[in-house]
Protein backbone atom coordinates (compact mmCIF):
# COMPACT_ATOMS: atom_id res chain seq x y z
CA UNK A 1 0.00 0.00 0.00
CA UNK A 2 2.83 2.38 0.84
CA UNK A 3 4.37 2.09 -2.64
CA UNK A 4 0.98 2.91 -4.19
CA UNK A 5 0.58 6.03 -2.08
CA UNK A 6 4.18 7.09 -2.75
CA UNK A 7 3.86 6.71 -6.52
CA UNK A 8 0.56 8.63 -6.44
CA UNK A 9 2.14 11.45 -4.43
CA UNK A 10 5.16 11.53 -6.72
CA UNK A 11 2.83 12.05 -9.65
CA UNK A 12 0.75 14.67 -7.89
CA UNK A 13 3.58 16.71 -6.34
CA UNK A 14 6.10 16.40 -9.19
CA UNK A 15 9.36 18.08 -8.25
CA UNK A 16 8.01 19.05 -4.84
CA UNK A 17 8.28 15.38 -3.80
CA UNK A 18 11.99 15.84 -2.99
CA UNK A 19 11.14 18.30 -0.20
CA UNK A 20 8.61 15.88 1.29
CA UNK A 21 10.83 12.81 1.03
CA UNK A 22 12.97 13.27 4.21
CA UNK A 23 9.90 13.51 6.47
CA UNK A 24 7.89 10.90 4.54
CA UNK A 25 8.39 8.02 7.08
CA UNK A 26 7.08 10.29 9.84
CA UNK A 27 4.08 11.40 7.75
CA UNK A 28 3.28 7.84 6.73
CA UNK A 29 3.50 6.51 10.31
CA UNK A 30 1.28 9.32 11.59
CA UNK A 31 -1.22 8.58 8.81
CA UNK A 32 -1.32 4.92 9.86
CA UNK A 33 -1.80 5.90 13.51
CA UNK A 34 -4.72 8.17 12.59
CA UNK A 35 -6.14 5.40 10.43
CA UNK A 36 -6.26 3.13 13.49
CA UNK A 37 -7.17 5.60 16.22
CA UNK A 38 -10.03 7.38 14.44
CA UNK A 39 -12.10 4.20 13.94
CA UNK A 40 -11.09 3.09 17.42
CA UNK A 41 -12.46 6.26 19.02
CA UNK A 42 -15.65 5.86 17.00
CA UNK A 43 -15.95 2.24 18.18
CA UNK A 44 -15.42 3.39 21.76
CA UNK A 45 -18.27 5.88 21.39
CA UNK A 46 -20.62 3.31 19.92
CA UNK A 47 -19.51 0.65 22.40
CA UNK A 48 -20.91 2.84 25.19
CA UNK A 49 -24.17 3.13 23.22
CA UNK A 50 -24.26 -0.61 22.51
CA UNK A 51 -23.58 -1.35 26.18
CA UNK A 52 -26.52 0.76 27.30
CA UNK A 53 -28.76 -0.82 24.68
CA UNK A 54 -27.73 -4.40 25.46
CA UNK A 55 -28.04 -3.99 29.21
CA UNK A 56 -31.36 -2.26 28.65
CA UNK A 57 -32.70 -5.19 26.64
CA UNK A 58 -31.38 -7.68 29.19
CA UNK A 59 -33.24 -5.80 31.91
CA UNK A 60 -36.39 -5.56 29.75
CA UNK A 61 -35.92 -1.83 29.14
CA UNK A 62 -35.56 0.03 25.88
CA UNK A 63 -32.29 1.86 26.55
CA UNK A 64 -31.34 5.21 24.98
CA UNK A 65 -33.72 5.98 22.07
CA UNK A 66 -34.28 9.77 22.18
CA UNK A 67 -31.32 11.37 20.39
CA UNK A 68 -31.36 10.77 16.65
CA UNK A 69 -32.86 7.74 14.91
CA UNK A 70 -33.00 4.77 17.34
CA UNK A 71 -30.92 6.88 19.75
CA UNK A 72 -27.89 6.52 17.47
CA UNK A 73 -26.61 10.05 18.17
CA UNK A 74 -26.59 9.49 21.95
CA UNK A 75 -22.79 8.97 22.23
CA UNK A 76 -22.18 12.14 20.21
CA UNK A 77 -24.47 14.08 22.53
CA UNK A 78 -22.70 12.60 25.59
CA UNK A 79 -19.34 13.53 24.12
CA UNK A 80 -20.43 17.11 23.41
CA UNK A 81 -21.81 17.47 26.91
CA UNK A 82 -18.62 16.24 28.55
CA UNK A 83 -16.51 18.37 26.22
CA UNK A 84 -18.22 21.61 27.22
CA UNK A 85 -18.22 20.94 30.94
CA UNK A 86 -15.70 22.63 33.20
CA UNK A 87 -12.78 20.58 34.52
CA UNK A 88 -12.74 21.27 38.25
CA UNK A 89 -9.59 21.07 40.32
CA UNK A 90 -10.00 20.21 44.01
CA UNK A 91 -8.30 22.82 46.21
CA UNK A 92 -5.99 20.31 47.89
CA UNK A 93 -5.15 18.37 44.73
CA UNK A 94 -1.68 18.04 43.29
CA UNK A 95 -2.52 19.90 40.07
CA UNK A 96 0.25 18.58 37.81
CA UNK A 97 -0.36 14.95 38.71
CA UNK A 98 -4.12 15.52 38.62
CA UNK A 99 -3.75 16.37 34.93
CA UNK A 100 -1.22 13.59 34.34
CA UNK A 101 -3.57 10.88 35.68
CA UNK A 102 -6.07 10.74 32.79
CA UNK A 103 -3.26 11.08 30.24
CA UNK A 104 -1.40 8.12 31.73
CA UNK A 105 -4.63 6.13 31.67
CA UNK A 106 -5.39 6.64 28.01
CA UNK A 107 -1.88 6.69 26.51
CA UNK A 108 -1.06 2.97 27.04
CA UNK A 109 -4.57 1.99 25.91
CA UNK A 110 -3.88 3.65 22.56
CA UNK A 111 -0.15 2.86 22.27
CA UNK A 112 -0.77 -0.88 22.49
CA UNK A 113 -2.58 -0.84 19.12
CA UNK A 114 0.76 -0.32 17.35
CA UNK A 115 1.49 -4.05 17.23
CA UNK A 116 -2.03 -5.42 16.68
CA UNK A 117 -2.27 -7.04 13.22
CA UNK A 118 -5.69 -6.51 11.61
CA UNK A 119 -5.08 -8.67 8.54
CA UNK A 120 -1.93 -10.09 6.89
CA UNK A 121 0.48 -7.14 6.78
CA UNK A 122 -1.99 -4.63 8.20
CA UNK A 123 0.02 -3.57 11.22
CA UNK A 124 1.80 -0.35 12.18
CA UNK A 125 4.86 -2.07 13.70
CA UNK A 126 5.35 -5.74 12.84
CA UNK A 127 7.97 -6.22 15.56
CA UNK A 128 9.52 -9.46 16.71
CA UNK A 129 8.70 -9.03 20.38
CA UNK A 130 5.07 -7.98 19.88
CA UNK A 131 3.69 -9.91 22.84
CA UNK A 132 6.35 -8.48 25.14
CA UNK A 133 5.50 -5.00 23.91
CA UNK A 134 1.81 -5.57 24.64
CA UNK A 135 2.55 -6.86 28.15
CA UNK A 136 4.92 -3.96 28.83
CA UNK A 137 2.55 -1.27 27.59
CA UNK A 138 -0.53 -2.65 29.28
CA UNK A 139 1.35 -2.91 32.58
CA UNK A 140 1.88 0.87 32.47
CA UNK A 141 -1.88 1.52 32.38
CA UNK A 142 -2.23 1.15 36.14
CA UNK A 143 -0.28 4.37 36.69
CA UNK A 144 -3.15 6.47 35.40
CA UNK A 145 -5.44 5.19 38.12
CA UNK A 146 -2.86 5.34 40.90
CA UNK A 147 -1.73 8.86 40.02
CA UNK A 148 -5.33 10.06 39.71
CA UNK A 149 -6.21 8.49 43.06
CA UNK A 150 -3.31 10.03 44.90
CA UNK A 151 -3.37 13.44 43.21
CA UNK A 152 -7.05 13.95 44.05
CA UNK A 153 -6.05 14.07 47.73
CA UNK A 154 -9.39 12.65 48.75
CA UNK A 155 -10.42 9.45 50.48
CA UNK A 156 -12.49 7.51 47.96
CA UNK A 157 -10.04 8.07 45.08
CA UNK A 158 -7.25 6.85 47.37
CA UNK A 159 -9.16 3.66 48.14
CA UNK A 160 -9.82 3.21 44.44
CA UNK A 161 -6.13 3.63 43.63
CA UNK A 162 -5.12 1.12 46.31
CA UNK A 163 -7.60 -1.45 45.03
CA UNK A 164 -6.59 -0.81 41.43
CA UNK A 165 -2.89 -1.29 41.98
CA UNK A 166 -3.43 -4.57 43.85
CA UNK A 167 -6.02 -5.92 41.42
CA UNK A 168 -4.34 -5.00 38.16
CA UNK A 169 -0.93 -6.35 39.20
CA UNK A 170 -2.51 -9.61 40.40
CA UNK A 171 -4.38 -10.28 37.19
CA UNK A 172 -1.46 -9.21 35.03
CA UNK A 173 0.41 -12.21 36.48
CA UNK A 174 -2.22 -14.73 35.41
CA UNK A 175 -2.65 -13.06 32.01
CA UNK A 176 1.10 -13.16 31.38
CA UNK A 177 1.38 -16.78 32.50
CA UNK A 178 -1.61 -17.73 30.35
CA UNK A 179 0.08 -16.15 27.35
CA UNK A 180 3.23 -18.22 27.96
CA UNK A 181 1.29 -21.33 26.83
CA UNK A 182 0.32 -19.52 23.63
CA UNK A 183 3.96 -18.54 23.04
CA UNK A 184 5.10 -22.12 23.61
CA UNK A 185 2.73 -23.63 21.06
CA UNK A 186 3.17 -20.91 18.42
CA UNK A 187 6.94 -20.66 18.94
CA UNK A 188 6.98 -16.92 18.35
CA UNK A 189 6.48 -13.55 20.03
CA UNK A 190 5.29 -11.94 16.81
CA UNK A 191 1.53 -11.49 16.74
CA UNK A 192 1.14 -12.15 13.01
CA UNK A 193 3.07 -15.40 13.37
CA UNK A 194 0.92 -16.39 16.36
CA UNK A 195 -2.15 -15.99 14.17
CA UNK A 196 -0.61 -17.89 11.26
CA UNK A 197 0.46 -20.72 13.59
CA UNK A 198 -3.23 -21.28 14.35
CA UNK A 199 -4.05 -21.89 10.68
CA UNK A 200 -2.18 -25.22 10.75
CA UNK A 201 -3.25 -28.46 12.38
CA UNK A 202 -5.16 -31.66 11.85
CA UNK A 203 -8.63 -30.10 12.01
CA UNK A 204 -7.53 -27.28 9.71
CA UNK A 205 -6.49 -29.86 7.11
CA UNK A 206 -10.06 -31.24 7.23
CA UNK A 207 -11.44 -27.72 6.72
CA UNK A 208 -12.61 -27.16 10.30
CA UNK A 209 -10.15 -24.34 11.01
CA UNK A 210 -11.89 -23.10 14.13
CA UNK A 211 -11.03 -26.36 15.93
CA UNK A 212 -7.32 -25.76 15.26
CA UNK A 213 -7.26 -22.37 16.95
CA UNK A 214 -5.59 -22.09 20.32
CA UNK A 215 -8.80 -21.93 22.33
CA UNK A 216 -9.40 -25.69 22.14
CA UNK A 217 -6.02 -27.18 23.13
CA UNK A 218 -5.49 -24.33 25.61
CA UNK A 219 -9.09 -24.16 26.82
CA UNK A 220 -8.27 -23.49 30.52
CA UNK A 221 -5.91 -20.69 29.48
CA UNK A 222 -8.59 -19.21 27.24
CA UNK A 223 -10.93 -19.05 30.23
CA UNK A 224 -8.26 -17.63 32.52
CA UNK A 225 -7.27 -15.03 29.94
CA UNK A 226 -10.83 -13.92 29.27
CA UNK A 227 -11.74 -13.58 32.95
CA UNK A 228 -8.42 -11.93 33.81
CA UNK A 229 -9.07 -9.54 30.95
CA UNK A 230 -12.33 -8.50 32.54
CA UNK A 231 -10.55 -7.98 35.86
CA UNK A 232 -7.66 -6.14 34.18
CA UNK A 233 -10.02 -3.60 32.62
CA UNK A 234 -11.84 -3.18 35.95
CA UNK A 235 -15.16 -4.16 34.45
CA UNK A 236 -18.13 -5.67 36.28
CA UNK A 237 -18.20 -8.08 38.08
CA UNK A 238 -14.62 -7.13 39.01
CA UNK A 239 -15.19 -3.37 39.18
CA UNK A 240 -14.29 -2.96 42.84
CA UNK A 241 -11.95 -0.15 41.77
CA UNK A 242 -14.90 2.12 41.06
CA UNK A 243 -17.64 0.20 42.91
CA UNK A 244 -20.48 2.73 43.06
CA UNK A 245 -22.04 1.31 46.20
CA UNK A 246 -18.78 1.27 48.15
CA UNK A 247 -16.45 4.04 47.00
CA UNK A 248 -18.72 6.10 44.69
CA UNK A 249 -16.51 6.02 41.58
CA UNK A 250 -13.05 5.32 42.98
CA UNK A 251 -10.27 7.25 41.28
CA UNK A 252 -12.75 9.24 39.14
CA UNK A 253 -14.64 10.90 42.01
CA UNK A 254 -12.94 14.29 41.71
CA UNK A 255 -12.80 14.40 37.91
CA UNK A 256 -15.27 16.20 35.71
CA UNK A 257 -15.76 17.10 32.07
CA UNK A 258 -13.13 15.99 29.59
CA UNK A 259 -10.74 14.69 32.30
CA UNK A 260 -13.44 12.24 33.38
CA UNK A 261 -14.19 11.39 29.75
CA UNK A 262 -10.52 10.42 29.28
CA UNK A 263 -10.85 7.71 31.95
CA UNK A 264 -14.05 6.58 30.30
CA UNK A 265 -12.41 6.42 26.87
CA UNK A 266 -9.42 4.58 28.33
CA UNK A 267 -11.65 1.95 29.94
CA UNK A 268 -13.54 1.23 26.73
CA UNK A 269 -10.41 1.37 24.57
CA UNK A 270 -8.87 -1.17 26.94
CA UNK A 271 -11.93 -3.39 26.60
CA UNK A 272 -11.61 -3.35 22.82
CA UNK A 273 -7.87 -3.97 23.14
CA UNK A 274 -8.33 -6.98 25.43
CA UNK A 275 -10.96 -8.36 23.04
CA UNK A 276 -8.60 -7.91 20.11
CA UNK A 277 -5.78 -9.61 22.02
CA UNK A 278 -8.01 -12.53 23.00
CA UNK A 279 -9.13 -12.89 19.38
CA UNK A 280 -5.55 -12.90 18.16
CA UNK A 281 -4.09 -15.22 20.79
CA UNK A 282 -6.92 -17.75 21.10
CA UNK A 283 -9.47 -17.28 18.33
CA UNK A 284 -7.27 -17.12 15.27
CA UNK A 285 -7.32 -13.37 14.58
CA UNK A 286 -8.35 -12.68 11.00
CA UNK A 287 -8.67 -16.38 10.06
CA UNK A 288 -12.05 -17.64 8.94
CA UNK A 289 -13.69 -20.44 10.94
CA UNK A 290 -14.07 -22.84 7.99
CA UNK A 291 -11.43 -23.64 5.39
CA UNK A 292 -13.38 -22.70 2.25
CA UNK A 293 -14.35 -19.18 3.46
CA UNK A 294 -11.75 -16.48 2.69
CA UNK A 295 -9.92 -14.89 5.62
CA UNK A 296 -10.09 -11.17 6.26
CA UNK A 297 -10.31 -8.27 8.65
CA UNK A 298 -14.09 -8.73 9.07
CA UNK A 299 -13.46 -11.99 10.93
CA UNK A 300 -11.27 -10.22 13.48
CA UNK A 301 -13.92 -7.52 13.84
CA UNK A 302 -16.62 -10.15 14.35
CA UNK A 303 -14.57 -11.93 17.02
CA UNK A 304 -13.83 -8.66 18.80
CA UNK A 305 -17.55 -7.80 18.73
CA UNK A 306 -18.46 -11.21 20.14
CA UNK A 307 -16.03 -10.87 23.06
CA UNK A 308 -17.21 -7.31 23.70
CA UNK A 309 -20.75 -8.65 23.89
CA UNK A 310 -19.49 -11.16 26.47
CA UNK A 311 -18.11 -8.23 28.49
CA UNK A 312 -21.51 -6.52 28.45
CA UNK A 313 -23.41 -9.75 29.07
CA UNK A 314 -21.56 -10.60 32.27
CA UNK A 315 -21.94 -7.02 33.45
CA UNK A 316 -25.71 -7.42 33.26
CA UNK A 317 -25.60 -10.90 34.79
CA UNK A 318 -23.29 -11.10 37.79
CA UNK A 319 -23.19 -9.21 41.07
CA UNK A 320 -19.90 -7.53 42.04
CA UNK A 321 -17.18 -9.71 43.56
CA UNK A 322 -16.14 -9.03 47.11
CA UNK A 323 -12.57 -7.77 47.31
CA UNK A 324 -11.11 -10.81 49.11
CA UNK A 325 -12.88 -13.18 46.70
CA UNK A 326 -11.31 -11.27 43.84
CA UNK A 327 -7.81 -11.66 45.26
CA UNK A 328 -8.42 -15.33 46.03
CA UNK A 329 -9.57 -16.01 42.48
CA UNK A 330 -6.48 -14.34 41.05
CA UNK A 331 -3.78 -15.78 43.24
CA UNK A 332 -5.17 -19.08 44.51
CA UNK A 333 -7.09 -20.28 41.46
CA UNK A 334 -5.75 -18.69 38.29
CA UNK A 335 -2.02 -18.54 39.04
CA UNK A 336 -1.75 -22.24 40.09
CA UNK A 337 -3.94 -23.25 37.15
CA UNK A 338 -1.74 -21.40 34.66
CA UNK A 339 1.44 -22.82 36.20
CA UNK A 340 0.08 -26.37 35.94
CA UNK A 341 -1.09 -25.81 32.37
CA UNK A 342 2.34 -24.50 31.34
CA UNK A 343 3.77 -27.79 32.58
CA UNK A 344 1.02 -29.79 30.82
CA UNK A 345 1.62 -27.91 27.56
CA UNK A 346 5.38 -28.48 27.83
CA UNK A 347 4.97 -32.23 28.40
CA UNK A 348 2.34 -32.43 25.64
CA UNK A 349 4.60 -30.67 23.15
CA UNK A 350 7.51 -33.01 23.90
CA UNK A 351 5.38 -36.17 23.89
CA UNK A 352 4.57 -38.19 20.70
CA UNK A 353 0.97 -36.90 21.00
CA UNK A 354 2.06 -33.35 20.20
CA UNK A 355 -0.25 -31.61 17.72
CA UNK A 356 2.09 -28.68 17.06
CA UNK A 357 4.83 -30.34 15.01
Amino acid at each position, binding site marked *: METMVVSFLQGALGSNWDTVKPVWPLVWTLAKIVLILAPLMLSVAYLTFWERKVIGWMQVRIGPNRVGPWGLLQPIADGMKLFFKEVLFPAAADKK*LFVLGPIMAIAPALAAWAVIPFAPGWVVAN*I*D*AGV*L*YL*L*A*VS*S*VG*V*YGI*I*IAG*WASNSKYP*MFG*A*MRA*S*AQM*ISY*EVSMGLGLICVLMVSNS*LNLSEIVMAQSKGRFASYGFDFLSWNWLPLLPMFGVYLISGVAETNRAPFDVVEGESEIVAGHMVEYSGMAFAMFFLAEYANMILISAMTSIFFLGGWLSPLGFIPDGFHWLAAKIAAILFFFLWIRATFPRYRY*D*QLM*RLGWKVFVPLTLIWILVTGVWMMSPLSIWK
Partner: protein
Amino acid sequence: MEFKTLLFYIFSTITVIAALRVITAKNPVHAVLFLVLAFFNVAGLWMLLQAEFLSLALVMVYVGAVMVLFLFVVMMLDINIERVRAGFWANLPLGIVVGGLLAAEMAMVLSGKYFGLANLPPQNLPANYSNTKELARVLFTDYAYPFEIASVILLVAIIVAVMLTLRRRKDNKAMHSSDQIAVKAKDRMRLVKMAPEVELPASQGDKA
Protein backbone atom coordinates in the same frame (compact mmCIF):
# COMPACT_ATOMS: atom_id res chain seq x y z
CA MET B 1 22.20 13.89 12.00
CA GLU B 2 20.63 10.48 11.97
CA PHE B 3 17.16 10.16 13.50
CA LYS B 4 18.46 7.57 15.98
CA THR B 5 21.05 10.03 17.28
CA LEU B 6 18.32 12.59 17.88
CA LEU B 7 16.32 9.96 19.78
CA PHE B 8 19.40 9.09 21.82
CA TYR B 9 19.85 12.71 22.90
CA ILE B 10 16.16 13.07 23.76
CA PHE B 11 16.10 9.87 25.83
CA SER B 12 19.39 10.54 27.60
CA THR B 13 18.53 14.17 28.42
CA ILE B 14 15.21 13.16 29.96
CA THR B 15 16.91 10.29 31.83
CA VAL B 16 19.50 12.60 33.38
CA ILE B 17 16.95 15.27 34.32
CA ALA B 18 14.56 12.68 35.76
CA ALA B 19 17.37 10.99 37.72
CA LEU B 20 18.38 14.37 39.16
CA ARG B 21 14.79 15.11 40.12
CA VAL B 22 14.55 11.73 41.89
CA ILE B 23 17.07 12.94 44.47
CA THR B 24 16.01 16.59 44.53
CA ALA B 25 12.20 16.24 44.56
CA LYS B 26 10.76 17.19 47.94
CA ASN B 27 7.72 14.95 47.71
CA PRO B 28 8.58 11.22 47.80
CA VAL B 29 5.68 10.41 45.44
CA HIS B 30 7.10 12.80 42.86
CA ALA B 31 10.52 11.22 43.35
CA VAL B 32 9.11 7.74 42.64
CA LEU B 33 7.33 9.00 39.52
CA PHE B 34 10.55 10.60 38.28
CA LEU B 35 12.29 7.28 38.85
CA VAL B 36 9.61 5.66 36.68
CA LEU B 37 10.29 8.27 33.99
CA ALA B 38 14.02 7.55 34.21
CA PHE B 39 13.40 3.80 33.83
CA PHE B 40 11.17 4.41 30.85
CA ASN B 41 13.80 6.47 29.07
CA VAL B 42 16.54 3.99 29.87
CA ALA B 43 14.30 1.36 28.27
CA GLY B 44 14.20 3.61 25.21
CA LEU B 45 18.00 3.82 25.20
CA TRP B 46 18.28 0.03 25.38
CA MET B 47 15.85 -0.24 22.51
CA LEU B 48 18.22 1.93 20.47
CA LEU B 49 20.98 -0.59 21.27
CA GLN B 50 18.72 -3.29 19.74
CA ALA B 51 18.33 -5.02 23.11
CA GLU B 52 14.56 -5.17 22.74
CA PHE B 53 14.05 -8.01 25.22
CA LEU B 54 15.91 -6.25 28.04
CA SER B 55 14.21 -2.99 27.21
CA LEU B 56 10.68 -4.40 27.27
CA ALA B 57 11.45 -6.53 30.34
CA LEU B 58 12.62 -3.36 32.10
CA VAL B 59 9.29 -1.66 31.37
CA MET B 60 7.27 -4.75 32.24
CA VAL B 61 9.06 -5.72 35.46
CA TYR B 62 10.32 -2.44 36.89
CA VAL B 63 7.88 0.14 35.58
CA GLY B 64 4.85 -2.15 35.50
CA ALA B 65 5.26 -4.06 38.75
CA VAL B 66 8.11 -3.04 41.06
CA MET B 67 7.58 0.71 40.86
CA VAL B 68 3.83 0.32 41.28
CA LEU B 69 4.48 -1.42 44.60
CA PHE B 70 7.00 1.31 45.50
CA LEU B 71 4.38 3.93 44.75
CA PHE B 72 1.83 1.92 46.70
CA VAL B 73 4.05 1.96 49.79
CA VAL B 74 5.18 5.57 49.45
CA MET B 75 1.61 6.78 49.02
CA MET B 76 0.53 5.05 52.21
CA LEU B 77 3.42 6.37 54.30
CA ASP B 78 2.84 9.52 56.26
CA ILE B 79 6.32 10.86 55.71
CA ASN B 80 7.52 13.86 57.63
CA ILE B 81 9.62 15.56 54.96
CA GLU B 82 11.49 17.74 57.49
CA ARG B 83 12.71 14.71 59.42
CA VAL B 84 13.77 12.82 56.29
CA ARG B 85 15.93 15.74 55.23
CA ALA B 86 17.49 16.24 58.67
CA GLY B 87 20.34 13.72 58.20
CA PHE B 88 21.52 15.24 54.93
CA TRP B 89 24.83 16.70 56.13
CA ALA B 90 25.68 13.72 58.35
CA ASN B 91 25.23 11.24 55.50
CA LEU B 92 26.85 13.42 52.85
CA PRO B 93 30.44 12.00 53.13
CA LEU B 94 29.23 8.42 52.68
CA GLY B 95 27.05 9.51 49.78
CA ILE B 96 30.00 11.24 48.12
CA VAL B 97 32.14 8.08 48.44
CA VAL B 98 29.43 5.85 46.90
CA GLY B 99 28.67 8.40 44.17
CA GLY B 100 32.39 8.78 43.42
CA LEU B 101 32.78 5.01 43.06
CA LEU B 102 29.84 4.88 40.66
CA ALA B 103 31.23 7.78 38.66
CA ALA B 104 34.65 6.11 38.47
CA GLU B 105 33.15 2.85 37.25
CA MET B 106 31.10 4.65 34.66
CA ALA B 107 34.20 6.50 33.50
CA MET B 108 36.00 3.17 33.06
CA VAL B 109 33.18 1.82 30.93
CA LEU B 110 32.80 4.99 28.89
CA SER B 111 36.52 5.31 28.26
CA GLY B 112 36.68 1.65 27.28
CA LYS B 113 38.96 2.45 24.37
CA TYR B 114 41.89 2.98 26.74
CA PHE B 115 41.30 -0.27 28.61
CA GLY B 116 40.86 -2.40 25.50
CA LEU B 117 37.17 -3.04 26.06
CA ALA B 118 36.31 -2.01 22.53
CA ASN B 119 37.91 -5.13 21.04
CA LEU B 120 34.63 -7.01 20.91
CA PRO B 121 33.98 -9.10 17.80
CA PRO B 122 31.97 -7.15 15.22
CA GLN B 123 28.28 -7.96 15.11
CA ASN B 124 27.09 -9.25 11.77
CA LEU B 125 23.47 -9.96 12.50
CA PRO B 126 21.17 -11.53 9.93
CA ALA B 127 17.93 -9.72 9.11
CA ASN B 128 15.72 -12.18 11.00
CA TYR B 129 17.87 -12.05 14.15
CA SER B 130 15.69 -12.19 17.25
CA ASN B 131 17.33 -10.90 20.38
CA THR B 132 14.71 -12.62 22.55
CA LYS B 133 15.16 -16.01 20.92
CA GLU B 134 18.95 -15.89 21.17
CA LEU B 135 18.77 -14.90 24.83
CA ALA B 136 16.34 -17.72 25.57
CA ARG B 137 18.50 -20.24 23.71
CA VAL B 138 21.59 -19.38 25.75
CA LEU B 139 19.65 -19.16 28.99
CA PHE B 140 17.98 -22.55 28.69
CA THR B 141 20.92 -24.51 27.22
CA ASP B 142 24.40 -23.31 28.24
CA TYR B 143 23.24 -21.64 31.45
CA ALA B 144 20.33 -23.91 32.38
CA TYR B 145 21.69 -24.82 35.83
CA PRO B 146 22.62 -21.27 36.90
CA PHE B 147 19.21 -20.18 35.66
CA GLU B 148 17.43 -22.86 37.67
CA ILE B 149 19.46 -22.04 40.79
CA ALA B 150 18.64 -18.36 40.44
CA SER B 151 14.94 -19.13 40.11
CA VAL B 152 15.01 -21.41 43.17
CA ILE B 153 16.72 -18.65 45.18
CA LEU B 154 13.99 -16.23 44.11
CA LEU B 155 11.31 -18.76 45.03
CA VAL B 156 12.86 -19.23 48.47
CA ALA B 157 12.95 -15.45 48.89
CA ILE B 158 9.25 -15.21 48.03
CA ILE B 159 8.32 -17.95 50.50
CA VAL B 160 10.46 -16.39 53.23
CA ALA B 161 8.90 -12.98 52.65
CA VAL B 162 5.43 -14.49 52.90
CA MET B 163 6.31 -16.50 56.02
CA LEU B 164 7.87 -13.50 57.79
CA THR B 165 4.75 -11.40 57.34
CA LEU B 166 2.21 -14.16 57.80
CA ARG B 167 0.57 -14.03 61.18
CA ARG B 168 -2.71 -15.60 61.99
CA ARG B 169 -4.69 -13.60 64.48
CA LYS B 170 -6.72 -15.61 66.95
CA ASP B 171 -9.69 -13.25 66.76
CA ASN B 172 -9.78 -13.43 62.98
CA LYS B 173 -13.30 -14.11 61.82
CA ALA B 174 -12.60 -14.16 58.09
CA MET B 175 -14.51 -16.80 56.18
CA HIS B 176 -13.05 -19.15 53.64
CA SER B 177 -14.73 -18.52 50.31
CA SER B 178 -14.58 -22.21 49.39
CA ASP B 179 -16.42 -23.13 52.62
CA GLN B 180 -19.03 -20.50 51.87
CA ILE B 181 -19.54 -21.76 48.36
CA ALA B 182 -19.69 -25.39 49.50
CA VAL B 183 -22.54 -24.76 51.93
CA LYS B 184 -25.57 -26.95 51.29
CA ALA B 185 -29.13 -26.02 52.11
CA LYS B 186 -29.45 -28.88 54.59
CA ASP B 187 -26.51 -27.52 56.69
CA ARG B 188 -28.44 -24.35 57.35
CA MET B 189 -32.06 -25.39 57.36
CA ARG B 190 -33.94 -28.39 58.76
CA LEU B 191 -37.17 -29.41 57.09
CA VAL B 192 -39.67 -30.91 59.53
CA LYS B 193 -42.52 -33.13 58.48
CA MET B 194 -45.75 -32.48 60.31
CA ALA B 195 -49.42 -33.09 59.86
CA PRO B 196 -51.27 -30.26 58.14
CA GLU B 197 -53.22 -27.88 60.34
CA VAL B 198 -56.91 -28.50 59.88
CA GLU B 199 -59.08 -25.42 59.99
CA LEU B 200 -62.21 -25.69 62.11
CA PRO B 201 -65.52 -25.69 60.29
CA ALA B 202 -66.87 -22.16 59.88
CA SER B 203 -70.11 -22.84 61.75
CA GLN B 204 -68.25 -23.54 65.03
CA GLY B 205 -66.23 -20.33 64.67
CA ASP B 206 -69.41 -18.26 64.36
CA LYS B 207 -70.80 -19.55 67.63
CA ALA B 208 -67.70 -18.73 69.66
